C-alpha cells in the first residue's frame, strides 16, 4: 500500500467513525447521463420580487456600472461599431480576438487595429504585449452585475481575458438572468463536460489597503460591457 492509499483509508475511517451518530441518509445523487439533475433543491431557490423580470436588464446595467465597468447598450446590428468605439476610447493599439468571435465584430476590429488571433497568441508572454481583448460571454446576472465566461470559442482560452489590460465584452440581452441560482442552474453541463468558468464582476480590484477599494490590480483594469439588443 502506498503512503497515499493508507492516508486515504485512514482519513475515511476517521470521518466515518466521527459521523457514526448520524442516522439520516445522504442525499447522494447519481450523475444522470444528461447531467441535468432533477431540481431536488427547489426549496433553495430564492424567491424573486414580483415584477423583477421587466427590470432585469436595467438592474444588470446599473450593477455592472456600479462596479466601475463601462456599460454600453446598442441594437445587435451596431455591436461592431460599439466595440471599435470602446477600444478607441481605451486608447489601445493591438487586440487579440478569440477564434469563434462573431465575424462582423472581428472584421470591424480588424479594420481599425492590429489584430492578433487566438491561434497566433501561443503564450502568456505574447499576450502580455497585447493591449486588449474582445469576447462574447455566456451569462449575465442582474442582481450582482456579473458576467460569466464559459470560454467557448467566442470567448477563447482563459488567459486571453486575463493578461491584456482592456477587456471589451459583448453580452446579448437574452443572456441576462435575474439572480445567482438561475445562473448556477444554467451553467450546469453534462457529466464530464464541465467547462472552466470565470465569473467577472467589474474590473480587477483590491480592498487590501485600509479596506479602500482600488480598481485594477492583476486582471484587466478596463472592462467595457456592451449589451446587445436581441435582433
Amino acid at each position: 500500500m502506498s503512503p497515499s492509499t493508507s492516508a486515504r483509508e485512514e482519513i475515511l475511517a476517521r470521518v466515518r467513525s466521527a459521523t457514526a451518530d448520524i442516522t439520516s441518509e445522504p442525499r447522494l445523487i447519481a450523475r444522470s447521463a444528461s447531467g441535468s439533475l432533477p431540481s431536488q433543491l427547489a426549496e433553495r431557490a430564492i424567491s424573486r420580487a414580483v415584477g423583477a423580470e421587466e427590470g432585469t436588464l436595467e438592474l444588470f446595467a446599473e450593477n455592472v456600472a456600479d462596479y466601475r465597468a463601462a456599460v454600453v447598450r446598442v441594437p445587435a446590428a451596431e455591436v461592431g461599431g460599439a466595440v471599435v468605439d470602446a477600444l478607441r476610447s481605451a486608447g489601445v493599439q493591438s487586440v487579440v480576438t478569440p477564434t469563434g468571435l462573431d465575424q462582423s465584430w472581428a472584421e470591424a476590429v480588424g479594420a481599425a487595429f492590429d489584430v492578433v488571433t487566438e491561434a497566433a497568441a501561443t503564450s502568456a508572454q505574447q499576450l502580455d504585449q497585447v493591449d486588449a481583448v474582445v469576447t462574447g460571454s455566456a451569462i449575465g446576472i442582474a442582481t450582482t452585475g456579473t458576467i460569466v465566461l464559459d470560454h467557448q470559442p467566442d470567448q477563447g482560452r482563459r488567459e486571453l481575458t486575463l493578461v491584456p489590460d482592456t477587456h471589451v465584452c459583448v453580452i446579448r440581452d437574452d443572456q441576462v438572468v435575474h439572480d445567482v441560482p438561475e445562473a448556477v442552474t444554467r451553467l450546469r453541463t453534462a457529466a464530464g463536460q464541465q467547462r472552466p468558468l470565470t465569473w467577472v464582476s467589474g474590473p480587477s480590484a483590491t480592498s487590501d489597503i485600509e479596506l479602500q477599494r482600488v480598481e485594477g490590480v492583476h486582471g484587466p483594469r478596463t472592462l467595457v460591457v456592451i449589451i446587445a439588443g436581441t435582433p
Partner: protein
Amino acid sequence: MSIGPVQETSPTFVGMPAFPEAAREALANTQQRQNLHNATHTIRAKRAAVVAEVDDWEALRVAGADAKDEALHHLGDYLEQVEESLTANGAIVHWARDAAEANRIVIDIARAKEVDEVVKVKSMATQEIELNEALEEAGISAWETDLAELIVQLFGDRPSHILVPAIHRNRTEIRDVFLREMARFGRPAPDDLTDDPARLAEAARLHLREKFLRAKVAVSGANFAIADTGTLVVVESEGNGRMCLTLPETLISVVGIEKVLPTWDDLGPMLQLLPRSSTGERMNPYTTMWSGVHDGDGPQEVHVILLDNGRSHVLADSVGRQALRCIRCSACLNVCPVYERTGGHAYGSVYPGPIGAVLNPQLRGTSSEVDASLPYASSLCGACFDACPVRINIPELLVELRGTVAEQGGHRAESAAMKAAAWVLSDPRRLAVAQKGATTAGKLIGKRTITKVPGLGAWTDARNLPTPPKETFRQWWAREHEEGGQR
C-alpha cells in the same frame, strides 16, 4: 477505527502566551487599534448594506448551513464522490492526514517539476500547514501573490485577519515596506512611490507580473469542492488567483476535507452568502471554477490534496462539528468587539476572531495555554452568530468549550470560586453567615468600586465587582416587619 487526532500546533505558534497576555500587548499598540477600528467599521457598514438588499437573507443562511451540514454529516460518502469526479475529470487526488504529509506531497510534486519557486493564491489551508516555511526549507521559494499576503510576506509578519491579512498595517507603513523590500525579491518598487492605494496596487501589479509569466507551478486552496461535478472554486478580487490558476503548467490545490459541497446547485446560496458576508460586495470581482484538466486551456497537470489535519477530530463532536461549516468569510471578526480591539495576532493561530476562538481549541485541543484561554476571549455578545452566513452558533460553542477547559482544571480560581459558592449556597445557615460577612465588607467599603481582589487576578482584572450592600435581604425583611408592624 479511531477518531482523528488533534492538529499538531505549528512551530510558529508553539508556546504562544494565553490570550489575555497577548491581548494586553496588542491593546498597547495604538496605531494598530486605530487601523483595526477604521477597517472593521468600514466593512461592517458595507456588509450591512448589501445584506439588506437580499429579500430573504435568513432563508439563504439556512440554505447555506443546510448544504454544509449535508456534506459534513455524510462526509465519507461525499469525499469518495469528489475523489471519483475529480479523477474522472483528469485531476490527481492525494490525501494528507496532517500538515507534514500535505507539505511533503507539495514538495515532491515541485521537485518532480524541477522548479525552485511556486506562485501562490491566498489560502487559509496552506497557511495552517505552514507550507511556505516547508517549501523554503526544501529550497523552493513560495511567492504570495495576494496584495495583502505580499505585504505580510515583505514585512516578515503574520496575517491578522482571514480576509485582509494586512489590516493591521496602514498605507504609509505599506509604502515604506515596498520601497525597502521589493527589490530583494524581484522588480523593485518605483522610486517615486506614494502612499496612494492605487499607486501601491500598481507597484504590486508590476512586481508580480514577471513572476506570473515565468512560474511553472502554482499552489492554491479552494473555497468549495463540488462532489457531484468534481469542480473546485476559488473566489477572489485582484486577479492574482486567475493568474495562478490559469498560467502555470502545474496546479496544486490544498483543500480541507470540510470544503466539500454535495452538489453544483449548492453554489446558488453559497455564491450569494460568501461575497456579501466577506467583502460586503454583491459579488467579488473574480471567481474561477475548474473541473480537473481542461484540454488546451489552463494547467494540464492538476493535483488536489484532501487535508484532514484535525478536522475529523472536530467532526466527532456532535455540537462542535458545526464549526466546520465555516466558509472563512470573516464576518464574525468584523463585528466582534474583542477582535476589534485586540487584532488577530493575540489568537495564536491563522484563524483569529470568534471563529478562531472556537475552531483552534477544537482542532488543536485545549492543552496549551493559548488554546485553553481562547474560549474566554469573548463577551458572549452574540454578534458573531448573527453575522455568520452559515449560522454557526459561536456563543454556544464557546460556552461548551469553557466547560471542557473548566473540567480539565484550566481556570483554577474560577472553579475554586464556583465550588465555594456551591458549598455556601447549599446550606441556609452558611449563606446567612456569608451574607453578614459581605454586608460588613459593604459597610467598610462604602461607595468605592472594587476593581481587584487578591488571588483572583485574571478574573477581577477584567471585571468590576458591585460593592456589597450594607444589609442583606433577610436583615431588611426583619427590620421592615419589626418597624412597620402589619403593613
